[in-house]
């Protein structure tokens, strides 16, 4: 009933939804920064936070990306196991730090890059595991 093998199409769809996911994270970070001046220890502070966040167009751009990701992700899940799709989607662990460095001027240390390397090895093993049956 369900195909177990990862085909090139599915892999490309996963990578594309990763790009969308990365884009979504970037948009949400940008919108969250707009609300970061508010204190979150009381209700009006929390309200102020969401007011700041919802006023940025980055948030709405993020929502559009989420809707697109939902369509692609559902299509992928109709063809492969959840325990394969989710790990393989961790390609965004490479994309997100790259975006953080380039667009948000965050620092990524050598150790973090080593971690990313391990994650990629893990992804390769999980991808291969989809051919076990």
């Amino acid at each position, binding site marked *: 009933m369900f195909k177990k093998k990862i085909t090139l199409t599915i892999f490309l769809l996963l990578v594309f939804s990763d790009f969308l996911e990365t884009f979504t994270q970037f948009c949400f970070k940008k919108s969250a920064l707009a609300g970061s001046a508010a204190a979150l220890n009381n209700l009006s502070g929390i309200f102020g936070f969401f007011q700041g966040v919802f006023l940025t167009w980055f948030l709405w751009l993020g929502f559009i990306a989420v809707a697109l990701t939902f369509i692609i992700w559902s299509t992928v899940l109709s063809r492969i196991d959840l325990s394969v799709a*989710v790990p393989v989607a961790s390609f965004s662990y490479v994309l997100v730090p790259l975006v953080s460095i380039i667009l948000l001027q965050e620092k*990524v240390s050598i150790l973090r890059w080593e971690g990313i390397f391990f994650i990629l090895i893990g992804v390769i093993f999980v991808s291969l595991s989809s051919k076990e049956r």
Partner: protein
Amino acid sequence: MKEGLSFILLLIIAASILDTVTQLLLKSAINSLRVSVSGSLGKIIQFIMQLIRLPQVWVALFFSVLALCVWLFVLSRADLSLAFSIGSLHYIFIAFSSRFLLKEKVGFKRWLGTFFIVIGIVLVTIG
């Protein structure tokens, strides 16, 4: 970061669990349709239309919005690369819940791969 790191960690783990619940609901909804979508855009639209009629998908959406709210708080306080890295704890949650709740066959390579991802997460977190 006046709330402290442990508070942020707790929120990230909460978001991960909410995200895992979302994925489980969505996958079980898709499994119940018993289709394998491929090819034309028309078929994909037809599939999505079938899918959004299922109540689990809307419960999944609810959990996803909850996860998003928690996530927005986290992002307002922590580095994107750090938050996203610790958030990957849900790979472990996904592996176990897929195995025991969705009855997926998680073989040696898949556990090994998940294990490598966990090592990677730890390195990324302390890095």
